[in-house]
C-alpha cells in the first residue's frame, strides 16, 4: 500500500468532482475493496463532492486510510464554509431538493456507506464524514 495515509483535495469546481471520484476509487482499490463496495463509495463521493460545489460554494475533501483493530477502511470528510443547511430533517428526506436535483444525494450517500455523519451550522458551513470499511 502507498505510504501516504491521509491528505486533502480541493473541491471547488465541477471538474474537481471528477478528481474526487478518481481519488476515492484509487484509495479504495489500493485497500483491496470489492468492486461493489468501491462503486458505492465512489458514488457517495460523487454526490457529496457535488453538493460541496453546488450548495457549499466549494470546499475540500480530506481523505484518510484507516487501519485499526485488524480492519481497513476509507474515511472522507467533505467540508465547506457555505450557507449550511437550515432544515437538516428536510434535507435528509428522500426526494427533497432546494435546487433542481432529485433530492437523493445526501440520503443516497448515507445508504451507500457504513458510517455517515453530518454537521452543519447555518451561516457557517457543512461537514459530512463518510466511512466505508472493507
Amino acid at each position, binding site marked *: 500500500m502507498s505510504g501516504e495515509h491521509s491528505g486533502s483535495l480541493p473541491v471547488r469546481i465541477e471538474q474537481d468532482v471528477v478528481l474526487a471520484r478518481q481519488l476515492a476509487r484509487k484509495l479504495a482499490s489500493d485497500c483491496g475493496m470489492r468492486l*461493489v463496495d*468501491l462503486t458505492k463509495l465512489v458514488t457517495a463521493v460523487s454526490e457529496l463532492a457535488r453538493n460541496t460545489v453546488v450548495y457549499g460554494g466549494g470546499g475540500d475533501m480530506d481523505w484518510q486510510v484507516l487501519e485499526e483493530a485488524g480492519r481497513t477502511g476509507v474515511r472522507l470528510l467533505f467540508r465547506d464554509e457555505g450557507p449550511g443547511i437550515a432544515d437538516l430533517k428536510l434535507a435528509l428526506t428522500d426526494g427533497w431538493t432546494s435546487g433542481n436535483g*432529485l433530492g437523493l*444525494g445526501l440520503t443516497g450517500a448515507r*445508504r451507500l456507506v457504513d458510517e455517515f455523519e453530518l454537521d452543519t451550522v447555518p451561516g457557517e458551513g457543512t461537514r459530512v464524514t463518510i466511512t466505508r470499511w472493507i
Partner: protein
Amino acid sequence: MASLHGSTLEAIKHNHAQLLVQWVAALEANGATRNIKEQTLSQETRDFLQLLIDVLQADSGNDIVSSDWDEARRFLERLSASRAQLGHDSHQAAYFIFALKRPLFSLLQTHFSDDPARLAEQLWLISELLDTLGMHTIRTFQKTREAVIKRQQEELLELSTPVVKLWDGVLALPLIGTLDSQRSQTVMESLLQRIVDTGSEIAIIDITGVPTVDTLVAQHLLKTVTAIRLMGADCIISGVRPQIAQTIVHLGLDLGTLTTKANLADALKLALKRLGVNLGEQV
C-alpha cells in the same frame, strides 16, 4: 540593476563553441532531447546563444519583458510549443534554459578566478536572468498545453456522441466517460436529432463506459428517455452492470419506468423483438 560585465560577454563569445557542446551534453544527460533531432537541437542551441549574446551586447538589462528581449521571448514561445507537441512536459521544456547554467557558471569561474567578488556578482546576474527565461518557458508551455487540452475537450465532446445505427429502426449511443452537464446536453441533442433524421423507433443508450451512475447521471438519463418517448420512440438503457444496479438501488433511484438490460446484445435482442424481427429459433 548591475549589468553584466563586459568581460563576461567577451568570455561567452570567446568560448561560444565549447559552451554549446557542454549545453547539448547537459540536455542529453537529462532526457530533455527526447524525439528531437540532433541537428534541430544544435540549431536551437546555437540560435538561442546568439540571441542571448546579441541582447546582452546591446546592454538591455535583465528585464526580459522589455522590447529588447522580444526576439528571445518569441524564440522560447516557439520552443515551448514544439516541445509540447513532442509530448515533453514543462520541466523538460524549461530545462532547455536551465541546462545552460552549469556550462556558463564554470566558464565564469575560470574567467574570474582571481576576482571572487566580481565572480559572485556575475554569477548572480546570469543565474537570475536564466531563471526568468526558464520561468517564461514554463509559463508559455502551460498556456500551450491548456490550449491543447481545451481543443481536445471540444473534440471529445463531438467524438463522444457517436450515434450508430444497429439495425433498421434501431439506434445505439454508447456513452463513455463522465456525463457532465455540457456533455449530456450534446449527447441528448445529437441522439434526438438522429432519431428524427432516421425515423428510428428504438434508441439504445449503452452506459457500459460510464464508471459512476449518480443522481446527476440518472437525472440526465431520465430526461433523455422522457424526450425520446415524447417523440414517439422507445428507449432501452444497456450496460447496467451488477455493481451499478446495486448502487442505484441503495441510492434510492427509481428507474422503474426505464427498460434496462445488462448488455448491448440483450438490448438489441429486445429491440428486434419489439420491432417484430424474427431472430430464428436456435437463439
